[in-house]
């Protein structure tokens, strides 16, 4: 199996059985936005806009580099944006304009 074949057929989250470090028993209190992000995931599921499996698929589709470098909820929110684009619920331009508006409100 070539290296690139492995990239294509092994998802970045498919890590069961791989070598890994000693466990660091870490936890953190969720930041407010992270909790809102989790609530958003649940509400999108209840409203049948994005189901749990679609979310997982969306996170996987970010690819190994982003999965490795983004934190848990950072991955979720980027995945949601991508899925909402694909479902034509939002457009990238719409989101970019709204983000600029949000940023302009900040101190």
């Amino acid at each position: 199996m070539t290296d690139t074949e492995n990239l294509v057929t092994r998802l970045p989250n498919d890590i069961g059985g791989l070598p890994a470090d000693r466990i660091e028993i870490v936890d953190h209190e969720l930041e407010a936005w992270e909790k809102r992000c989790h609530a958003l995931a649940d509400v999108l599921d209840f409203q049948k806009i994005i189901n749990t499996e679609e979310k997982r698929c969306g996170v996987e589709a970010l690819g190994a580099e982003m999965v490795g470098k983004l934190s848990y909820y950072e991955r979720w929110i980027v995945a949601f944006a991508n899925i909402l684009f694909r479902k034509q619920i939002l457009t990238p331009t719409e989101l970019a304009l709204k983000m600029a508006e949000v940023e302009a409100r900040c101190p």
Partner: protein
Amino acid sequence: MSQTLHDHDHAHDHPAIEQAARPGYYEMLETAVRELLVEKKLIAADEIRRQIEVLDSRTPALGARIVARAWVDPDFRARLLADGRAACEECGISFYDDTSLIVVENTDKIHNLIVCTLCSCYPRPVLGLPPDWYKLKPYRARAVSDPRAVLAEFGTIIPDNIEVRVHDSTAMVRYLVLPKRPEGTENYAEEQLAALVTRDTMIGVAPAQIQGSAS
């Protein structure tokens, strides 16, 4: 100060996040997505607020009460082992999603350990949100190939004559471990028993113990 944790192997410094600082990129992204969906009337702002309350109300204390009840009531224990979700609902713990719950009991012969290698499946309605270590690579990668070493890193040594059984939740089923009732608790009231049941005992990385005993 809080830190977000990244799921990769090499260590690096995370910038400290100060209270009331300018929101980060991802917080702004979350805000923008949410506001657009509300503007388009696909979700309501109240639904998010309500779901945050739902999430805040789900803590390991709920699971602890289920375990304590199972320890004192053999008929309830039997119902819990037959259908975890129905038994939880019987105790007033609603499941807000479509998942089912299987409760696996630790015995003198079997020690159970729960993991989700592919993501972070966890019995959230009855335990709340999982700890970071459960979602990070070392636990997810090694629980299914070296469970005894993983348990040892939590200070839990299982004798060789006890089977270690690892459950990888990949589908709609979620798992909860029913830990063994500690010796010396025969006269404990149900509330006292519940106080012995921590989140980690219901994931299976630690046995339930009387406070202050050697780990």
